[in-house]
């Protein structure tokens, strides 16, 4: 049986703009049919990565492969890749139909095929009735759909999306995220999306490549990225995290026992703690800390004082302080009135499960802390 080649493969790619290194020695593989998101802060190089795949930029060193073929020197119009631009880049002199048909016309498809394909994608993005309008006459959301339809119409092997939802308002953005995911499942095309919005990345992606300073900080499924951040940058960029340093206290029973600033201890699987390292940073997600007015059984429990309480609707955000002076953020669901209420000034017992304590590595390129 043939193994399908990866949709996209970047091999040791470096791209500099003058003195600025946008992408450094970066390798990445995108499997056919997957929805991969390049997530990172602005200026991290994620857009450059997209442009390298599209062919708008040529790498200084390294190669770009699409579907198992080296396309490093191929211009954009020879690549089986279409892009949804951040500004949509709809042609203002063409109506919706002609915008969508543009790629097909460039491929010199028969008129009948063009018509049926245009009708098909218009149905796909729910734009029926807008065919004769000019882009200027559409709402932001509609323009976004036209851009999507235009890029999908030629049935590219890979669809690139450069911050496609950033111009939409929050509510529409959420709808479109779901829509995008649905669309990708429906057409089965490989999607590579660039965004700086971690929530969007988590919603739409199969896998996320976290990009920082021209390198990939972490690549993994959305679950892996969230639950097992590899570095302090990863932990902080996605979701919220309590980051602090701990020291190895002892090993035993297949566990590595860590001592926190406040004096309490928690055990993690011994394999999670590297050999010959005494101190490391760990991450605990705020919702993984359980608060109670009564002492909970088991290890990983410690006492603390609630110093601040912020009402956030469905949940509360607490700031607690341990006896050793360590401040932690805790998110707790606003549960039913049957449960005891916790308020600022209360003394509480906290519990953390060993699995929720993530021992972090160093930031990948070792150039200090994330912003």
């Amino acid at each position, binding site marked *: 049986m043939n193994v399908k080649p990866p949709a996209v493969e970047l091999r040791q790619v470096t791209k500099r703009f003058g003195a600025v290194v946008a992408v450094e020695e970066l390798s990445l593989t995108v499997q056919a049919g997957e929805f991969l998101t390049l997530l990172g802060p602005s200026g991290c190089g994620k857009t450059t990565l997209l442009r390298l795949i*599209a*062919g*708008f930029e040529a790498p200084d060193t390294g190669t770009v492969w699409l579907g198992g073929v080296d396309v490093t020197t191929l*211009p*954009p*119009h020879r690549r089986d*890749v*279409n*892009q949804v*631009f*951040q*500004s949509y*880049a*709809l*042609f*203002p*002199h063409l109506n919706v139909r002609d915008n969508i048909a*543009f*790629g097909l016309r*460039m*491929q010199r498809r028969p008129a009948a095929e063009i018509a049926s394909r245009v009708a098909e994608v218009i149905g796909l993005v729910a734009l029926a009735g807008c065919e004769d309008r000019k882009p200027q006459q559409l709402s932001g959301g509609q323009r976004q759909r036209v851009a999507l339809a*235009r*890029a999908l119409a*030629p049935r590219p092997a890979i669809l690139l999306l450069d911050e496609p939802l950033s111009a939409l308002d929050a509510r529409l953005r959420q709808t479109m995220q779901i829509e995008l995911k649905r669309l990708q499942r429906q057409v089965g095309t490989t999607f590579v999306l660039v965004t700086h919005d971690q929530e969007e990345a988590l919603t739409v992606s199969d896998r996320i490549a976290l990009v920082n300073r021209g390198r990939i900080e972490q690549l993994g499924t959305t679950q892996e990225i969230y639950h097992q951040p590899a570095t302090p940058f990863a932990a902080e960029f996605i979701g919220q995290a309590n980051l602090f340093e701990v020291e190895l206290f002892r090993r035993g029973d297949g566990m590595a026992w860590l001592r926190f600033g406040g004096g309490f201890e928690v055990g993690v699987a011994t394999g999670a703690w590297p050999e010959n390292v005494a101190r490391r940073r760990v991450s605990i997600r705020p919702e993984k800390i359980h608060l109670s007015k009564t002492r909970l059984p088991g290890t990983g429990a410690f006492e603390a004082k609630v110093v601040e309480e912020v009402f956030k609707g469905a949940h509360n955000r607490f700031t607690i302080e341990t006896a050793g002076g360590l401040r932690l953020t805790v998110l707790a669901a606003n549960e039913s009135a049957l449960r005891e209420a916790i308020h600022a000034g209360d003394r509480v017992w906290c519990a953390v499960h060993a699995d929720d304590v993530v021992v972090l590595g160093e930031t990948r390129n070792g150039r200090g802390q994330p912003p």
Partner: protein
Amino acid sequence: MSPGSAQRRRPGLTAWLLLAPLLLWLLAFVVAPAAILILYSFAERDELGRVAFGFSLENFQRVADPTYLAVFGRSVGYAALTTVICAVLGYPVAWCIARASEKWRHRLLLLVMIPFWTSFLIRTYAWITILKSEGLLNGLLLWLHAIAAPLELLYTPAAVIVGLVYAYLPFMILPIYGSAEKLDPALLEAAHDLGCGPWRAFVRVVVPLTLPGFYAGVLMVFVPAIGMFAITDLMGGARVPMIGNVIQDQFVGQARDKPFGAALALVFMLLFVAVYWLLQRRAERKLA
């Protein structure tokens, strides 16, 4: 505005006051001169060359004389050729300037505009120095042994076209540049992305989107080029009269027949309006 939502409001006093400078400007520089021209065109010339007001269509009959129609046709022909050459030369230049980096863009624009800092006459004399029999170009060609005897360059129709193109090229470049510079580079990338090679992207996207600037350029070259007379005098040896020469002659030349000059100018102006209107309609249809 939704249909029937509100009655159209009449402009209030403030609105009129705000419009006053524009209206005054139009009155002083558009309406008044046009009115004088119209009034003159129906008048007659007295013995001394003064305007004797009256109502006569004779001037318009004279405009229709084959002599003047031929002059008119020639002026339009020269202007059209000038416009075509300016477009062919100016479009790529404007496009390249618009695509250059910001630093270079400013320098290149400056180069386009530097000739304006010198008197038009001096620039035309410079061309005479280049094109004359014992001029720089013939000197160069003789020195290179490309020719055996000096070429006849000056005082030819070609020299007139060179002069016209030189004079009006910036007026083609600048509006096209204005359009091209506003063009979102992402549109070009989108075209490439959707399978356009550079040439097809240019034809399918760049040309249609820079059309307003192009039309403006065509107007700014074609219209004044019809009326130009200094270049045909200086570089063409005044051998073939242009409509501008004929009109000038009626106002400040020997003919001293202002009413007839006014009639010529009026017909000439109506031609501008017609050309403008046609271009405008085409542009609107393209972009509507």
